[in-house]
């Protein structure tokens, strides 16, 4: 089906409005909030600390453990039953893998670093918003990382390649393909890639390229948020 105009009026390569803030959970070692459109994610980092049971320990570095969760009221329809489910466990795992290539935890063998990601409100793109928040929180916590990680969903709505699908677009009656990607902004390498739907190889390549361009814009927002925390205020 033809998709000639986006439901919320954006251009096809336009992201929703973004807002990022670092240091939002005082108790945590590092934390951040990332909002894109109406999707709001908070991430907090704790550790490194002892890891039990022992068989989970890695001898050469700390283990990164991510925990993605949607608050019970944050869904688009009915209440989400609290607690982990198959979906949240899989998402937590792919988020961990999205950070493996950049995060250097070799200074903390056998320990664990916990990243908790909570969604307060959702309008699609939750795992990507979670990754953007977690990336800021890990940097805020002072861990060595080769790069930040930027993530966005791209894909197809009807016959049109778009970036940053919202919920109405995911549910488009003419069909939609959702492709969450995470990218390392300096090298352009991809660390998360999933796809839901049906798409031609040509369109897929176009969508990923559009997603990568979108990630560069996210990167700018993330950098600004990190620098804002330490912006030197003018001393009167």
């Amino acid at each position: 089906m033809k998709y000639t105009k986006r439901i919320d009026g954006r251009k096809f390569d336009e992201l929703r409005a973004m807002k990022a803030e670092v240091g939002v959970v005082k108790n945590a070692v590092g934390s951040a909030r990332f909002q894109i459109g109406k999707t709001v994610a908070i991430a907090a980092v704790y550790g490194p600390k002892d890891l039990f049971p022992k068989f989970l320990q890695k001898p050469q570095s700390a283990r990164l453990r991510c925990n993605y969760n949607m608050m019970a009221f944050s869904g688009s329809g009915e209440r989400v039953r609290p607690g982990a489910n198959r979906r949240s466990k899989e998402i937590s795992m792919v988020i961990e893998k999205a950070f493996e290539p950049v995060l250097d935890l070799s200074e903390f063998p056998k320990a664990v670093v916990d990243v908790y990601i909570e969604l307060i409100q959702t309008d699609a793109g939750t795992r990507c918003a979670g990754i953007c928040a977690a990336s800021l929180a890990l940097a805020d916590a002072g861990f060595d990382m080769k790069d930040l990680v930027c993530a966005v969903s791209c894909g197809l709505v009807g016959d049109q390649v778009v970036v940053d699908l919202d919920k109405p677009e995911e549910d488009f009656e003419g069909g939609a393909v959702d492709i969450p990607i995470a990218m390392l902004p300096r090298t352009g390498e991809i660390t998360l890639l999933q796809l839901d739907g049906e798409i031609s190889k040509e369109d897929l390549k176009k969508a990923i390229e559009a997603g990568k361009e979108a990630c560069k814009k996210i990167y700018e927002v993330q950098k600004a948020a990190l620098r804002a925390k330490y912006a030197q205020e003018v001393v009167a």
Partner: protein
Amino acid sequence: MSKLVIEERQVVIPGDTLAEGMDFLPGKGAFREGDNIISSRLGITNVSGRIVNVNALSGRYIPRRDDVVIGYVKDMSYSSWFVDVGCAYEASLSMKEATADFIERGSSLSDYFGIGEIILTRISNVTKEGNIDLTMKAPGLRKLHGGKIIEITPSKIPRVVGKQGSMISLIKDKTGCSIFAGQNGRIWIRGANPEAEKLATEAIQLINDKAHTSGLTERVGAFLEQHALEMQK
């Protein structure tokens, strides 16, 4: 042509280019990629000769040999104590390193250091695997009685101490508190009354929040001056 892209004491974030060309070397918090030196952390730059470092502005304590730290006694075995020094691993204090006294076979270790007690101690050894040994055998190391402990980002302790201890002396003078700053970010404060301790706490918190800025000594001095007056009223 090699050149620095950043200034000294500039806040940088992971992925920022710090220097171009082969004349510079990556130090702490930095790595080389092709011709460039890149920052691997959120921190503040420090160039020493050809080496470009990024000092962290956050994060938990990373234990180093000879650091003097403040620890909480967590547990004990037949022959040693286990101490929380605020890092990823528990440290251990052996009987031999704990006291010059002769401890008789079978006597209770809690007569010396009990669970929950606070000690000023020194890290005598750290292994890559995270084994940390402590010692009490050096001047000044002891159990800390009374007072309170506040925790700040460990990498900011040098700012709290200041050049030749100037900053910490300033706070001690203006508040009349006894203060020990452990390298692990824990600071012990004991003063004549809770108000004095609160003032010292706030001054240290100010340093923690503004450690990346310049003119910190003047700022803290002014802060203490202003509040010391209020306290006298």
